[in-house]
């Protein structure tokens, strides 16, 4: 389970250090005061802030914090300016790993969206013996990237947050700050409604429902995930299919062929679909004949040639006629090649000018982004001209250096960037299509030139034939035959390849069929039987809690249901809030928030077993109900932690708390302001000398320590721990032990001596790394 162990706040002010440092080690931890405005909420908000969940308070970064951390501390009727604030939160997960999260506010040269994670508890941190890592928040990727703090926190909590649909049509991760809206109840807005502090700008559809699903671990979320998987495999299949299809089309295009009857997107193909697929060849200009027929015709031509006399003298007349027509064809072809080349030059020119425009647009985008950054620089953020106000007359101005009296509407920089991005996309698209044209034209030119070459060589052969001896073998006939045979071979091969590719579509089609079958099998019902059991249990716990807390707006509790649509409590189909009195609404929030944790524990869901309630005594709740609320929390059989901010205005409230079993609660009573001067911080000389016979070592000199939260004994222990490993050298084995004598000073400055037994284990690979250190102090 997740636990908040300790919170330390230090506020550096013009009048020294102020702070707060408390442990939360019991089941219920009260941060209490007799009066208001003592700083309870400030402390609770600091927990939110450390976890990067300040959006639940309504905003990002330090501006959401109370002025005591940003502007001024009030102390003894004096306002003291705040210089910087530091927050440390020690948290622990179910594997008992402990980390300390550190975040700053208003600290010079420190971005408050930076979080430092120390991999150890706060005591270790004080002595600087823990490894740390910087992570960031509130920027793109903080929930999904490895350096993002929320990604880290998610893993620390042992969660795997699902991807959920959003209003943008893209699936996004269910953000941590959304889940915690059902776990941390904030004071100002938290008591208005269930999940009232949900940040809405994240555009997640039905966020309340997603929270409940995730916290209690409903199958419907897994189903949602399966649905996602199907979607991805559908995409993959589609793109695979199109790729194979385009492959065939492109190969065929090179020999002026087209394919018909093959679907270009995934379909279930029947057994003999390949019979229906046909390849046609474009003949002459636009006449199309089946490829097989064309090949047959070529074969027939060869036969014709074979039948012909091969001697020149026998067909001299034919030869002359053929030469004439051939020359005509050649000049036609030459003209065609010339035209195509012109087209090519034009297309290439277009591409070049488009690339130039694209460069300009890219530069514009870059400069616009710079401008946006300039606007957001810390030191310019407050300028009036950055809020589109005239610095002189505070009238509205438009953000342009054109004359201000032009009455056009101007784009904002963001809009401008989007506008340019759209232009960029258009340019890129145009470039792509021109490039496609170029490759098409080049293919045609290639083909034409090949044809031209063929014609020329035949013409050359005819010429040779005409001027040679009549008895000679006709070169023309042989050449023609040869070129026909080459063409037939080529087409045969391509046809064979294509047939093979077409048969490969069967496999894709099978995969497609399986996918569709899987999708069909998918339950129409959103909730599985298991889910129903959990939802019913949620209802039971909820109504039981309501009864305990004295909820009376609805007498017949059997009308209360958990709605399937939102997974929120309804009565007779309506939101329960409408039928509840103001104080009963508060009771409902208690009941539901606790019920979520109870169900989650019953069915091993994802609840972190930590709850925060800030001022649950809203709307003058009757003290007895409050008592039952605490009793319910104490009675839970599972391990959990609850942090409650409470004002103990009257004797009754005080009594309720003091009536609780001492082992169950810790009362952090703020008699003064929560953020108060750190009076108990005290420096004193601790140690004079350390003698270690084991290593002939002798460390001399006075060591100072600052006592804050720790007992003197702890301080001595830390000191020994720190020193021992500095003087131990020449380690040969994996562990070393010994006893040293320490000459120390107590808090009053009197000398005394004590022994310390130590045992240090080193890493087996690197003897400089200490894996374990144990110190026992022996006082006389």
């Amino acid at each position, binding site marked *: 389970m997740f636990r908040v162990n300790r919170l330390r706040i230090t506020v550096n002010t013009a009048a020294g250090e102020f702070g707060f440092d408390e442990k939360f080690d019991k089941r219920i931890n009260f941060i209490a005061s007799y009066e208001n405005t003592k700083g309870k909420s400030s402390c609770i908000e600091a927990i939110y802030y450390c976890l990067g969940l300040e959006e639940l308070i309504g905003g990002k970064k330090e501006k959401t914090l109370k002025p005591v951390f940003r502007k001024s501390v009030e102390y003894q009727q004096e306002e003291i300016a705040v210089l910087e604030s530091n927050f440390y939160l020690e948290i622990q997960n179910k594997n008992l790993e402990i980390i300390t999260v550190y975040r700053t506010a208003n600290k010079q040269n420190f971005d408050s969206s930076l979080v430092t994670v120390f991999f150890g508890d706060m005591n270790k941190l004080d002595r600087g013996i823990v490894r740390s890592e910087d992570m960031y928040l509130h920027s793109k990727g903080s929930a999904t990237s490895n350096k993002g703090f929320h990604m880290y926190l998610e893993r620390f909590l042992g969660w795997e947050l699902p991807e959920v649909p959003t209003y943008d049509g893209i699936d996004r991760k269910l953000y941590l700050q959304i889940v915690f809206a059902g776990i941390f109840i904030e004071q100002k807005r938290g008591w208005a409604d269930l999940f009232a502090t949900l940040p809405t700008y994240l555009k997640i559809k039905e966020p309340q429902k997603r929270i409940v699903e995730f916290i209690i671990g409903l199958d419907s979320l897994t189903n949602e995930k399966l649905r996602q998987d199907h979607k991805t495999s559908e995409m993959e299949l589609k793109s695979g299919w199109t790729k194979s299809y385009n492959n065939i089309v492109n190969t065929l295009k090179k020999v002026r062929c087209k394919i018909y009857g093959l679907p270009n997107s995934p379909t279930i193909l029947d057994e003999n679909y390949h019979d229906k697929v046909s390849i046609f060849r474009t003949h002459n200009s636009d006449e199309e004949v089946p490829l097989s027929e064309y090949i047959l015709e070529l074969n027939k031509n060869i036969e014709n040639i074979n039948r012909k006399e091969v001697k020149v003298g026998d067909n001299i007349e034919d030869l002359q006629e053929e030469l004439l027509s051939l020359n005509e064809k050649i000049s036609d072809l030459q003209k065609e090649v010339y035209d195509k080349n012109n087209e090519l030059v034009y297309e290439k020119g277009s591409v070049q000018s488009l690339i130039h425009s694209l460069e300009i647009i890219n530069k514009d985008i870059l400069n616009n982004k710079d401008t946006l950054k300039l606007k957001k620089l810390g*030191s310019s953020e407050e300028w009036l001209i950055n809020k589109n106000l005239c610095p002189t007359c505070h009238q509205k101005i438009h953000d342009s250096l054109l004359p201000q009296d032009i009455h056009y509407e101007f784009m904002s*920089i963001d809009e401008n960037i989007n506008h340019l991005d759209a232009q960029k996309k258009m340019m890129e698209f145009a470039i792509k299509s021109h490039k496609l044209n170029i490759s098409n034209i080049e293919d045609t030119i290639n083909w034409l030139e090949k044809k031209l070459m063929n014609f020329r060589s035949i013409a050359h052969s005819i010429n040779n034939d005409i001027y040679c001896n009549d008895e000679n073998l006709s070169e023309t006939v042989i050449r023609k035959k040869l070129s026909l045979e080459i063409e037939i071979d080529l087409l045969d091969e391509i046809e064979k390849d294509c047939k093979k590719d077409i048969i490969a579509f069967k496999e894709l089609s099978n995969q497609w069929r399986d996918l569709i079958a899987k999708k069909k099998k998918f339950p129409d019902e959103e909730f599985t039987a298991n889910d129903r059991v959990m939802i019913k249990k949620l209802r039971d716990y909820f109504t039981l809690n309501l009864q305990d807390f004295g909820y009376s707006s609805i007498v017949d509790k059997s009308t209360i249901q958990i709605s399937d649509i939102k997974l929120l409590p309804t009565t007779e189909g309506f939101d329960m809030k409408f039928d509840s009195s103001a104080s009963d609404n508060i009771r409902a929030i208690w009941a539901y928030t606790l019920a979520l944790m109870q169900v989650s524990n019953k069915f091993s869901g994802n609840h972190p077993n930590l709850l925060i309630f800030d001022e649950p005594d809203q709307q003058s709740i009757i003290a007895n109900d409050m008592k039952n609320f605490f009793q319910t929390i104490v009675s839970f059989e599972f391990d959990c932690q609850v942090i409650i901010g409470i004002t103990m205005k009257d004797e009754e409230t005080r009594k309720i708390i003091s009536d609780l079993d001492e082992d169950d609660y810790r009362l952090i009573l703020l008699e003064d302001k929560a953020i108060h001067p750190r009076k108990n911080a005290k420096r004193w000389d601790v140690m004079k000398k350390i003698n270690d016979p084991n290593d002939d070592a002798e460390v001399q000199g006075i060591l100072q320590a600052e006592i804050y939260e720790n007992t003197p004994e702890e301080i001595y222990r830390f000191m020994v721990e720190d020193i021992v490993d500095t003087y131990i050298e020449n380690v040969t084995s994996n562990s070393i032990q010994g006893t040293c004598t320490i000459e120390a000073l107590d808090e009053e400055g009197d000398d005394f001596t004590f022994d310390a037994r130590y045992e240090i284990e080193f890493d087996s690979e690197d003897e400089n790394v200490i894996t374990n250190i144990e110190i026992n102090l022996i006082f006389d």
Partner: protein
Amino acid sequence: MFIPDNVEGISFTNRPIAVPYNYRIIYRISQIILIIYYCCNRKACSLEKIHITSTALSTKDEMEKLLQFLDKENESYILVRFNPAINRAIDFALAEDILIRQKNGLFKLSTKGKKYMDNIVKDKDLFIFEKLNLSNIGTKLTEDRINQLISLWRGSYV
């Protein structure tokens, strides 16, 4: 205008128009601040100098012309363009208390302006080309040189 009979009416939607980045107030002001930082030893700067340098930053050609002019002591003429957008930017900067106009008419940065300047200069991703070009110009364009240029106008145009 010819409108076919079957067209009942034409409606127009007023859409916002795009503004080039160098016509954004903050961009220009930042540019002026950089000019003062790189080309004036962080001291005061005349209006003409801002105009000349800002024109040079607009295209590569203009920049080359200015650099040529600066390299040759005796070649003493360049065209000075006065861009009203820069004047407006200066007005805004004065009103926002980023620039201060001294008694001698030169402009210098206020404390607020200096703080902002530090931010832009420190950021390595901002104004990469501008910073390079401006440091090429450096302090070569002196106020004396500009006054000399202005004194020529009298001779040529009166």
